[in-house]
Structures are given as C-alpha cells and as structure tokens.
C-alpha cells in the first residue's frame, strides 16, 4: 500500500476502524468494572484478586488503545498499569489517595475515549495526571509502606526438568548481598509437579528479581507471590508445597523477617482459617498454580469477573424485533385461516398451528426482552457520584438503591441518566444538611438518599428521595417575588413547589460548583417531558424532598384488556382495571347537566363514556354501551362505559409519538393478532378528565 499516515490504524492494509465500536464498548465496560472494584475495595486489606482485576482493566484498555493508535489513552493507561502492577505485587501499600487518583484517571480515560468516539480533536489534558500517577507509583507520595521495607516472597520456579537449574537462584543471593536472602522450601528437591519453591526476603522490587532470576530460568517459569498475603490464592497454593516443606532448614533462616509471618505461616491460625475456608477454591487455584505461568493464573482468577454477555448491535436487535413481529402476524393470519378447517381431517395441521402460535409468542417475548436493561445500569453510577459529592461537600450521605432490577428500554435508560444525575446531585447539595446541622435538628448525622424504580401500570416510576431539610416555602415565595413571578401567600404547597420548575430558579444560599446556578430543574423537567414523562415534587420542611419521575414504557409488553367501543377496539392496561360489570337500567345517575355518576360499593364514581371521548361513530339502531369498567390510576377511580369486553392478552406497547404526536387520552398503540393497530387508553388521562 502507498502511504500509511497512522500505522496503528491500518496495519498491513487491514482497516481496524471496524473494530472501534467493539473497543469503545469493551473499554466502557472495563472502566465501569474498575470503578465498582475501586469503590468496593478495602483500602486496608485489598485482596490480590481485586488488585489483579483492576490491573487487567488498565492492561486491556492499554492494549486496545495502542492497537488502534490512541496514543494518549495508551500512555495514560500505561502509567496506571505501572502503578497497579506495583500494587498487585504488594510493592506499594494501597491508600485512599490512590483510590481517588485511580478513580480520577478512570474518568479521564472515559473522557478520552468519548473524544475519540465522537471524533472531536480536543483531548483532556493528561500530563499533570500522568505526573501524579508516576509520583504515586514511584512511592514518593507514599512516605511509609512497602517499597523500601523488606518483604517476604514466595517464589515458585518451574515446571522444570531438573531441580538444579533453580539452584542458580541461591547463588544470586550469595553474590549480591544487598538482595536479601533465599531459602528453599523443598530441601532442594524437585517436587512431583516439577516445581521448585523458595522463600525470598528482599527489599528489591519484583521486576528486579525477575530480571535477575531470568539469568538462570526462563521468565515465564518464575512466579512471585507475596508470602502470606491474606487471600485465598496463595493460601491455597501453600497446600501444595506443604508436604515437601515440613522441615525448612533452620540454617537458611532469614536474618530479618520483618513481616513476622515467616515460619509461622504454617501454623498461623489466621492462615489456617483461610486455608479451611478456601478449601473449595483450593483445587481450582492449585490447578491454576500448576499450569504456572503468571498470565494463566491471572485468567483463572479473573474467571469470576468476566461477563457472560454478548455484544450485539442495537440495530440488529431492532431488526429482529420487527421480523418477529411480522412472524407473529403471519402466524395469526394462519390461525385465522385454519379456524374453519375440519378438525379431524386436518388434525396434524391444526396441531402444528397451535405449536407455532405458542412458539412464536415465546419467541416474541424473549426477543422483546433483549432491548430491556435493568435500572441498575443507571443506578450504578450513583454510588460513585455520592461518594465524591459527600467528600466535596463535607457531608455524610448514604445512598439506598431500590428496584435496580426494574427493566426499561435501552433508549429510555440512556436518556434518563442526565435528569436523574441532576436530581441526585440536588438532593446531596441542597437536600442533605451537614452532619452538625442534622444533629442539631435531632437527626442522624448521615443523610440518606433513596433512589427507587418500579413498574406501575404502563409506566415506570423513578423516585429520588432524601431525608434532608426539604424545601422552604417562604424562601421559594421570596425568590419568586424577586424574580417577578406572580405569587400569593395563600398558594397551596403543590403550587409553591411547582415554582421550582421555573427556568432559572434556584434557592441555594450560595452557588456551589455542584449545583445552585438555577439552570437545572427546568431542564430536568424539559428532558423528562421530552420522553413523554411527568415529574412531580413533594416536600416537607425539615423532613425531606421527594421527586417522582413517571415515564411511559416505550417498548414493553403489557397485560391488556381489549374492549370494543362501536366498531373499534381499544386496549385498557390490565393493571389499572379493578372490576367490570353489566350496566343495569337506573344504575347511572346524572349530576348537573353533564355529569354522570355510578354507585359502586358505597362509593360514587364519575362515569366516562369512551365512545364520547373517542368520538366513535355509531350507526343508528346499534346497541349502546353495556359494560362498566372500574379503572384506577394514580390512586383514583373512574367508571368507564364500553360496549363489550373482547379478551385479555399481552400486548406490545408501541409509541405513537415515534412517527406521529401525542394523542389526548391515548398512551400508546399496539398491534393486534390480525395486524391491525389498536390504541391503548391512557387511564391516568381518563381519571384526570373525569375529575376536572
């Protein structure tokens, strides 16, 4: 080929750009994984497994970035890798500040990748960050801790053909006095698995040891582990040499075992406990140990963390959904045609059609569920956000997540992230008070923010609740007057809270870098309205604030009741149907000129006639509505008059707004078995209409 402007992009004339998507997707997943690992990690006692997992993330991103020619991503992740490598080799002690730095670096990598993905040329500056990571990695930031102190290491060499090859190691330690000491754990005899085991006490980093050892044995035959690290893997592997290492040579005892876990290792009750606990894992770990090379061992340890998902283009899924939809319609048509066939003569055919019906319905349900993602996808970013905010604002905030398994369409989930982030941020900044103020108010020092998600009828309900100071009515009214909004003192609370949604409204005492600039709530509402959702706010001064976001399920399967009105078919969400009964003469009474009510179990309910609302054309002499359906929405009930009940089935909810616009009293549409479209009645709208 002619010119290669970027060798990373076109290796050997092979266009790598087609794999960009996969890389970005994978990197994002990796970073999210790293973040959750970092948030969970116990700073005082990080397990090797966790450190290894984090290291692997940095490593795999670096590898990918280098392949695709994203030099700055590669250089940043390279530094991360160096730091993490030292951490996992126990050369550095993990500290809070490191976790912070790692989290920050993860964010920067995310930003870098976003830049590449969107094709913008602006890259976040990384030089300062790299410098800080370098410092941290070189241990300068860590005045105390591992790097200079002597460590006890378990060194395993092999598999070897003869044990002598490893004796060179002992010579090394003899020749270089500053290196520390080495002792054989196996009396110089090659164990049955072809391994030689040593205990090394040294102040030198692993890398240096590895370099030195490689004079005598191949690098990949060397495995260095921390001696007596409190994790299952080394404890488990310790079982293997146990037989051969019963009698360590006292002469070779290290002069200074600073960590005090030298011989005690075999009798240390703590380790013994670990050993017992890890017995189940031991077999696996040992097998991994035998296969020996570090890389392989890493893989075995990481098995639990690998995801079992398959990455598929959303377009393909949508295509699949459409195809299945067609299939279901074809199947419905076949069933229709076969209905009149003679059951005896065509029994096999009819049986096949029944099977087809069942299978295609299952297929449809399964395919539809592919697009659904649990809310955890959104919620999982909040622990980090809250952690950062709490430390920045000097508050103690506990985050509770409820209903993370609630599933929502992928498209909707992506769009709800920003508004939700805003609401959570608001709660943390304005809602939750400082520990001192909370205690003064007789509350626990730590505030709680609860995020919950649940299905309710045809919509999904997301709530952001805090037990903070709540909204102050007077303040809002004052602010509103300042801004020249028309307010009265006798406004209801709900009306006052509604002012919050006005553009540019903020009651924060001071503008912080977290929130309070007043650009916000109106944007939140606009975003949610754009998704055809509604947002409501409820607050009690001193007790907290609750924001409820209600979103329609754009793509969902819903249990529906199909009803006939005139010649038309409508769907009522089954969840909102309370009961139905035949209308008897005299049951419906009129109130005033237009109002009609019906008495149901000692309660008068307003009556709405669907044929009126939907202007259903009626032929003369046609029977009128005969069935009354009690429908409940948002805690209120109305009685809907319909002609007939047609049946109950699962319907796939489709959005009307995709190609058309919002229709009053209709929440969506669905496709019936015969391929025709039926509109889904918006029960919340019905209730509102009847009550106002």
């Amino acid at each position, binding site marked *: 080929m002619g010119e290669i402007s970027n060798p990373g992009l076109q290796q050997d004339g092979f266009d790598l750009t087609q794999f960009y998507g996969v890389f970005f997707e994978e990197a994002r997943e990796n970073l999210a994984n790293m973040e959750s690992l970092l948030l969970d990690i116990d700073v005082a006692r990080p397990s090797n497994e966790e450190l290894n997992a984090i290291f692997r993330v940095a490593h795999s991103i670096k590898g990918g970035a280098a392949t695709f020619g994203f030099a700055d991503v590669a250089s940043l992740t390279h530094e991360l890798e160096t730091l993490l490598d030292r951490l996992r080799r126990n050369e550095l002690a993990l500290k809070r500040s490191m976790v912070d730095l790692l989290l920050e670096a993860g964010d920067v990598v995310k930003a870098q990748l976003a830049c590449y993905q969107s094709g913008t040329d602006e890259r976040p500056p990384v030089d300062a960050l790299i410098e800080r990571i370098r410092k941290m990695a070189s241990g300068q930031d860590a005045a105390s801790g591992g790097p200079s102190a002597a460590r006890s290491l378990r060194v395993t060499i092999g598999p070897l053909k003869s044990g002598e090859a490893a004796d060179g190691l002992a010579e090394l330690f003899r020749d270089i006095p500053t290196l520390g000491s080495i002792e054989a754990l196996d009396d110089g005899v090659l164990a049955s698995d072809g391994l030689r085991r040593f205990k090394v006490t040294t102040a030198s980093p692993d890398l240096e040891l590895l370099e030195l050892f490689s004079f005598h044995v191949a690098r990949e035959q060397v495995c260095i582990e921390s001696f007596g690290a409190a994790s299952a893997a080394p404890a488990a592997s310790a079982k293997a040499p146990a037989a051969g290492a019963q009698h360590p040579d006292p002469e070779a005892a290290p002069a200074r075992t600073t960590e005090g876990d030298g011989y005690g290792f075999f009798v240390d009750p703590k380790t013994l406990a670990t050993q017992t606990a890890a017995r189940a894992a031991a077999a696996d770990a040992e097998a991994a140990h035998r296969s020996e090379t570090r890389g392989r061992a890493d893989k075995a340890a990481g098995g639990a963390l690998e995801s079992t998902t398959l990455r598929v283009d959303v377009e393909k899924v949508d295509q699949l*959904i*459409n195809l299945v*939809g*067609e299939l279901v*319609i074809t199947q419905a048509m076949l069933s229709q045609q076969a209905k009149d066939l003679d059951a005896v003569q065509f029994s096999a055919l009819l049986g096949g059609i029944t099977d087809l019906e069942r299978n295609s319905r299952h297929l449809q349900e399964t395919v539809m569920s592919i697009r659904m993602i649990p809310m955890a996808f959104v919620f999982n970013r909040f622990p980090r956000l809250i952690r950062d905010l709490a430390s920045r604002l000097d508050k103690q905030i506990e985050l509770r997540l409820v209903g993370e398994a609630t599933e929502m369409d992928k498209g909707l989930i992506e769009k709800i992230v920003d508004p939700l982030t805003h609401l959570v941020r608001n709660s943390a900044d304005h809602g939750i008070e400082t520990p001192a103020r909370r205690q003064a108010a007789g509350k626990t020092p730590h505030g709680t923010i609860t995020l919950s998600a649940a299905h309710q009828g045809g919509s999904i309900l997301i709530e952001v609740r805090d037990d903070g100071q709540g909204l102050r009515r007077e303040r809002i009214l004052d602010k509103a007057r300042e801004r020249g909004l028309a307010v009265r003192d006798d406004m209801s609370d709900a009306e006052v809270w509604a002012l919050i949604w006005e553009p540019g409204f903020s009651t924060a005492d001071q503008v912080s870098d977290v929130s309070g600039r007043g650009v916000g709530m109106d944007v939140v509402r606009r975003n949610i309205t754009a998704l055809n959702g509604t947002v409501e706010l409820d607050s009690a001064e001193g007790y907290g604030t609750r924001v409820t976001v209600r979103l329609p399920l754009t793509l969902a399967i819903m249990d529906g009741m199909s009803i006939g009105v005139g010649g*038309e078919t409508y769907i009522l969400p089954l969840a909102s149907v309370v009961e139905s009964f035949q209308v008897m003469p005299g049951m419906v009474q009129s109130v005033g000129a237009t109002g009609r009510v019906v008495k149901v179990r000692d309660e008068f309910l307003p009556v709405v006639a669907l044929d009126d*609302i*939907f*202007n*259903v054309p009626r032929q003369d002499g046609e029977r009128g509505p005969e069935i009354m359906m009690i429908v409940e929405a948002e805690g209120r009930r109305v009685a809907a008059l319909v002609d007939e009940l047609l049946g109950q089935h699962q319907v796939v909810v*489709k*959005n*009307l*707004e*995709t*190609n*058309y*616009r*919002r*229709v*009053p*009293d*209709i929440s969506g*549409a669905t*496709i019936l078995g015969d*391929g*025709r*479209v*039926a*509109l889904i009645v918006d029960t919340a709208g019905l209730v509102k209409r009847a009550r106002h």
Partner: protein
Amino acid sequence: MGMMERMEVRTGAATAAGVSEFLTFKLGGEEYGIDILKVQEIRCYEAVTRIANAPAFIKGVVNLRGVIVPIVDLRVKFALGEARYDTFTVVIILNVAGRVVGAVVDSVSDVMELGEGHVKPAPEFNSLLDAGYIMGLGTVQSGEGERLLILVDIERLMSSPDMGLLERAAA
C-alpha cells in the same frame, strides 16, 4: 428572498449534472412530483385505525412491519379529487424529518428525471397548498403536448405546523 434563490436551496437532491429524480403522482386532475429520495416504499391502502379528534385528513395509523405509521390523505388535505378508498388507492410511505409517514394519493404515475431547465419557479398565488411548499413547476413532454408537474417539498410540507404531525407543530 427571491424565488430563484429559494429554488437553489431546496433542490438538495439535485445530482451533479443538476438533474433530480422525482416520483410523480396524481391528486384529482393534477400531477405532483416529490423527491424520490424521500420515498421509502409504495403500498396499497389498507384499513387504518382511526385516531379520535384528529383532523379529517389524518386517516389514522397503520402497522407497517411493526412500526406505527400515521396516514395522511393529501386529497382531503388539499381538497383535490374524490377521497375514495379501494384496491387502487395508493399510499406513498415517506421518510421525512426522521419520521415515517404515509401519504394517500390517487395514483402513482412515474419516476422522472428533471433537469434544471425544466423547472420554473412557481408564481405567488392563492391556493390551499401554500406556495412556500412548492419547489417549482416542471414541464413534461407527453406526446404532442406538455403536462404541468407541481414539484412539492414534501419534507417541509409534512413537518409544517398545519399538518399537525409533529409535536411542536401541535403545541
């Protein structure tokens, strides 16, 4: 802005040689042309699901392979021809403004290439079809005589407020 300038802006589908392809259809006695690139497919008219309280020219919605598509009857909208619905009634499925919309017409005639020379700006006039939606008037040779072809900017028309198909237009 003069008519000629507007023309240049709107004939976005023009090929390098200044030739555009148009799908032509009939509404009553008139012949219209729309940019072929906006056309997704052509279908027979099938029963629609009526939408309550919608304007008369919005016939309702149909299921197009799992997609809910609104159907607009251009004959009703522009009071052209008789709004009959039989097996010969044709629906042009359009892809405009990121949406899928069906337009009912009397019949689809042809796909035609028109060079710049064959398109003349429309004069200002008074009709149900606002002159703003007309890209120009084309002339087509048919045998001995010439036919008039009204070139419509279908994207602008379908996303216009008086069509009421889009949310913001309705607000």
